[in-house]
């Protein structure tokens, strides 16, 4: 790896003199928005803040969650709704977490199979929910099975943004089509084999499916909610209590990595780091698309970005919670305070203070909820 001079170095003197204590075990799923973790490791940012980190690639979200909940990991990249699910103890797994930073805004794509695109006929980019609903109704008459779209996990931004988008066109995601779960790296194969008709996943998997000709990206998640918060960095409450300095140092390293990632001059190197560490089978071009804000040949209005994402906003997380309630995924007895307790802006501020990074301005509000049809 080449020597990299860090602009406005995050490495405040006190951090350097801190004695290394223990190793922080951090899990991630191979996705472009794991970049802050991978870059912090590759550029030596963790070392600089006096932290020993063991980064492990996990195969899917459920194993990652269980390892975090049962003590085999200290921290992880998580889908935004997952800390809510864990705070509420959904599906029997409960774990108090602290979200100290966001890892990205936007960056998921809806990719449809060539066969489905053929059925839909001429569509514009980004695909409108109304046009999709129209195509779906036309297709349904001749279809032998319901249209199947995969998301990455039940408690995912993908699931809730897609449901919101479908509902905005009057579609019932539980009746008019079939939503299934497939881990991100398996999406392109499933699309090619015709087991699913489309998928919503984080990059690079949409671009990877398009590159091998299995389908095309028709929509970015940022087209549904511009600059929506995506993955978060969460530590176990136990780690936050036992080693608060480590957590602050780790969060600072991630903010520094996000700042480095948002500089276009670093994108080529960022792609190289990702490829080396997590995506050996993909081309640099495929990985590069998300950094360039491209979906195929289309320019994304709200592309994947890192630095604006790092400040964890409880009011934005509240949107996930509302969707989870709307679809009956969270029982009525769970309060807002309990479900949103993991979001810890105070821990981000402690880390940002070291870097003299200012709190970003408030983003535009999330999309208005689509009201539920009061039907039986």
């Amino acid at each position, binding site marked *: 790896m080449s020597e990299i001079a860090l602009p406005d170095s995050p490495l405040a003197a006190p951090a350097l003199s801190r004695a290394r204590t223990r190793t922080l075990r951090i899990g991630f799923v191979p996705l472009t928005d794991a970049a802050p973790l991978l870059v912090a490791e590759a550029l030596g940012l963790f070392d600089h803040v006096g932290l020993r980190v063991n980064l492990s690639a*996990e*195969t*899917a*979200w*459920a*194993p990652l969650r*269980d*390892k975090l*909940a*049962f*003590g*085999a990991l200290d921290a992880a990249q998580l889908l935004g709704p997952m800390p809510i699910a864990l705070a509420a103890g*959904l*599906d*029997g*797994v*409960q774990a108090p977490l602290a979200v100290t930073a966001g890892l990205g805004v936007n960056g998921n794509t809806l990719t449809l199979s060539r066969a489905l695109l053929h059925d839909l006929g001429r569509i514009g980019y980004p695909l409108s929910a109304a046009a999709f609903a129209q195509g779906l109704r036309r297709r349904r008459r001749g279809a032998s099975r319901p249209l199947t779209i995969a*998301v*990455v*996990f*039940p*408690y995912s931004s993908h*699931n809730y943004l897609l449901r919101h988008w479908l509902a905005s066109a009057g579609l019932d995601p*539980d009746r008019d089509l*079939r*939503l*299934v*779960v*497939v*881990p991100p*790296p*398996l999406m392109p194969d*499933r699309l090619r*084999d015709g*087991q699913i008709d489309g998928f919503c996943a984080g990059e690079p998997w949409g671009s990877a499916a398009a590159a091998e000709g299995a389908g095309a990206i028709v929509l970015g998640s940022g087209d549904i909610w511009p600059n929506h918060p995506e993955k978060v960095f969460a530590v176990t409450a136990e780690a936050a209590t036992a080693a608060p300095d480590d957590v602050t140092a780790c969060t600072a390293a991630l903010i520094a990595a996000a700042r480095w990632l948002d500089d276009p001059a670093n994108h080529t190197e960022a792609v190289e780091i990702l490829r080396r560490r997590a995506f050996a089978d993909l081309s640099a071009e495929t990985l590069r698309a998300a950094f360039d804000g491209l979906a195929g040949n289309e320019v994304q209005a709200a592309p994947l970005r890192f630095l604006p994402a790092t400040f964890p906003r409880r009011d934005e997380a509240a949107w996930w919670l509302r969707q989870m309630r709307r679809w*009956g*995924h969270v*029982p009525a007895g769970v309060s807002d305070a309990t479900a949103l307790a993991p979001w810890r802006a105070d821990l981000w501020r402690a880390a940002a203070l070291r870097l003299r990074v200012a709190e970003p301005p408030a983003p535009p509000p999330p999309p208005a909820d689509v009201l539920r049809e*009061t039907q*039986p």
Partner: protein
Amino acid sequence: MAVEAGLAASGCTVVAIETGTADLTRRVRDSGAEVIVCGLDDPSRDEIEGMRALHRDEPRPVVLFAEKAEPAQIEAAIEAGVAAYIVEGLAPARVRPVMEVAIRSFRATQALRAEAAEARRGLAEQKLVDRAKAQLMQRQRLSEPEAYKRLRRMAMDRGVRLPVIAGEILDEK
């Protein structure tokens, strides 16, 4: 595979072994499996979670097999009731009790969930009847008790439940 031998030795019947993860729902149904045993790191675990959370499809208890795990982790997992862990090298005699605990805790969770769903449905139906009643009051200029009596009579005449009639009235407009 050691797990398979361990299961057989503990008196379980392995009805199917799935290596791929395609169309898991159908495979679970066709195999008639009572429990799904799967590796902690198996990517198909997300699909199993999806089956449960999104569709309530073919719900089955899941027993996870971990090659190595700290005893504290196993205890935490079992206490959480989500899954039981079988760790490599666990004596066959201890496998079966773990499976049984998983099945029992799973059934208890299912029963609670069914109860909650029933309660939600009841509430939704009550709201439907209220709205149909309000509509009758407005359209036919009836008092509340009259509207309710009318609804009840219509339901009795047709031999259907009150919410069914209420739904039809609301659909008419």
